[in-house]
């Protein structure tokens, strides 16, 4: 159709062009929110996120923390009668949010993901001790999990040294070519 020849402008058009998913098929039945394990903690529920997405309300969506609470459990996508893939819609929003500096979600969630990706960039694999330390430094949450920490060490479940893969340059190149970072963010970067 002539309409689809124009460059994608709206959130809906952009998602459809990239992935083929069309949120217009959503008829707001609420089945996604009904099965969402985080619904009781979210202020914007799954079906509302899809609705606002379809209405191109990016600002409204990024002002809210709800998209960062999604666990990607895919229960919603599995049961949606119209195959709208709400879990993909939310991932798409998270990617857009990451590109816009001003809208980056709750601090702890953001900090975790940054710390995790930094591990991959640094070593090629996640060195868990490094992950935890990086996370704690970003969030200042030094004393939570303190009760379980000794247990992990005594059970030999955390190595004290990271294992760096040989082809680490290849992994770093992936990050750079994806345009995620040119170099990893420093510890103090929020």
């Amino acid at each position: 159709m002539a309409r689809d020849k124009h460059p994608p402008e709206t959130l809906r058009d952009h998602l459809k062009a990239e992935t083929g998913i069309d949120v217009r098929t959503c008829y707001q039945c609420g089945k996604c929110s009904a099965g969402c394990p985080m619904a009781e903690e979210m202020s914007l529920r799954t079906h509302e996120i899809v609705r606002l997405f379809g209405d191109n309300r990016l600002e409204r969506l990024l002002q809210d923390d709800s998209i960062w609470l999604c666990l990607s459990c895919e229960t919603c996508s599995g049961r949606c009668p119209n195959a709208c893939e709400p879990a993909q819609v939310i991932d798409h929003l998270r990617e857009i949010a990451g590109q816009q500096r001003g809208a980056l979600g709750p601090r702890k969630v953001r900090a975790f993901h940054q710390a995790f990706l930094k591990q991959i960039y640094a070593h090629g694999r996640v060195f868990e001790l490094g992950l935890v330390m990086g996370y704690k430094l970003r969030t200042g949450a030094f004393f939570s999990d303190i009760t379980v920490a000794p247990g992990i060490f005594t059970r030999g479940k955390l190595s004290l040294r990271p294992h760096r893969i040989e082809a680490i340059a290849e992994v770093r190149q992936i990050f750079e070519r994806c345009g995620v970072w040119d170099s990893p963010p420093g510890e103090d970067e929020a």
Partner: protein
Amino acid sequence: MGGVGVFVCHCGENIGKSVDCVRVAEALRQHPGVSHAVDYKYMCSEPGQALMRQAIQEKGLDAVVVAACSPHMHEKTFRKAMAAAGMNPFLCEMANIREHCSWIHDDREEATQKAIALTTSTVERVRHNRALETIRIPIERRALVIGGGVAGIQAALDIAEAGYEVLLVERQPSIGGHMSALSETFPTLDCSQCILTPRMVEVAQHPKIRLLAYAEVEELSGYVGNFVATIRRKARSVIAERCNGCGACLERCPVKKIPNEFEQGMGKRSAIYVPFPQAVPNIPTIDREGCLRFKARARGSTKEPCGKCVEACGRDAIDFDQSDEIITEKIGAVVVATGYELYRIAQDQPPESPQLQGYGEYGYGEVPDVIDGLHFERLASASGPTGGKILRPSDGREPKTVAFLQCIGSRDPAKGMAYCSKICCMYVAKHATLYAHKVHDGQPVVFYMDVRAGGKGYEEFVRRTIVEDRAQYIRGRVSRLYRAGDKVRLHAFDTLSAEPVILDADMVVLATAVRPRSDARALAQRLQISTDENGFFREAHPKLRPVETNTAGVFLAGACQAPRDIPDSVAMASAVAGKVVGLFAKEMLEREPIVAMVQAQLCIGCFNCERACPYGAIEHVTLDDHGATREVARVNPGKCMGCGTCQAICRSKCVELEGYTDEQIFAAIMGL
């Protein structure tokens, strides 16, 4: 004077906007053989037709070309006008300069040139037209109604009342269909059987209706007005003429635990049974898979056990040696009223519908106390397995909270059914109302997406259910349900108040999708009609011809064409009866003479045409060719639908379609 007359229609702006009709007429006036060419605003109007008639009379035209819309629209109109002017109607052809030209082109010059070409081509073609006579065929004035539900019953009665014979064939032992299993009907809350059984009895007693219950149509051959139906009368093992319906055999039968299909498996019946007390005909049937004697025979045993029914019968009406009887009947019109079945949420779906999925999130039908609408109807029925009390199937206790889930299967493209089943919003409201009336401290909860209540009195009915009968309507689909203790737990979300809802219900009723019967496709093939993308029988035109099929003489009534409630099924049945009676009221059936003709001398007897013909219209005849005989093809003009496939496939070029001969077609091509 003779010659061809050309009439170019502007069709208001429709053609006139893109095509310069004046120029088209001018161009045609110059064409050799055209003795009259004019343009006019609306050729199909009375003055337009008068122009035609006038020209024909004044100029003694040989043939006429009307350059206008599609023949689908107005070929009939203009041919009638020809006839009115005393000319053979088949000497008139239409050049489609609307759908084929003005509607699809923007460039006025190009469109006009194309219109001139199309009209010229048609002029060249029409010069080879011959006068053809309408074919008249006799009509067998007997109707076959397949299906004895409320639609079939209504159609049969209406046709019979008009004075014509009806053969009503029903596959179950009794007529009545799904309506006889309902408790009360919306919006009046009439007792379903109370309003239906008088009609059922009327059918049985009507002098013009021959009721064949426990029978099936095996084959239908022939064509409109002249069908032959082959019907299998299944053996009840009871001699109908001797049986007086006393019921003694049912009582004496020792096999009493067969799940009763009529009660949706919630009640039991005996091996010799009547499906429900008000059955018509009230003649028992022996279920050969449940009967001890028949089971022994199937094992190969020579012993003849039981026979208690024979002992009980005072009229010697039981006959274990009765077999199926095949009969053939001549039929003029067929009414298909075979109804629907309900979708089941099980993991195993019918193999003829590979696109369907079950609902694992609702337990695939294995969770106790999760039932469907027909189960609920039997619970609510005074003559049902619980005497009209709403009781849980698992433990027989009265449920205090019943959840009703709408749209189970319907409006669910992921499960393979994108359509709306139309009746569920209303019957769910009805169920909620009946439950609230029967269980005074019971709470009905309805989970819905929308409420569709478009019929007369329907909206008011639903409002009463909510306002007066305290039904709680929650807008949101249930994500999953499962057994928690002795309750059924549902995880849902109220999209209007934006709150999660976790409900522990005592019983859940699913409004499952209305589907075509699993054997619908097979029946469609037997009757040579089509099915639509959802498997329902296909109507000839969804807006203007909703009760006809594309096969002349076969009509549709009721839910077999699409989900439909009782008032609309009855209305449709009466509409069909009108069509049938209209057909039968003609003296003879007229049909277009656009039929194929075989030049027998040239036929080499390869019968490719027979293999290709979709209508079974080719016959074998013996030709005496100068002393030597051989088998050649002949087209039956009654069955031939004028598709032209035989003409295309004939090796020796000896078949031609009247009105579409090779001569005519080549002339049209060369005339472009």
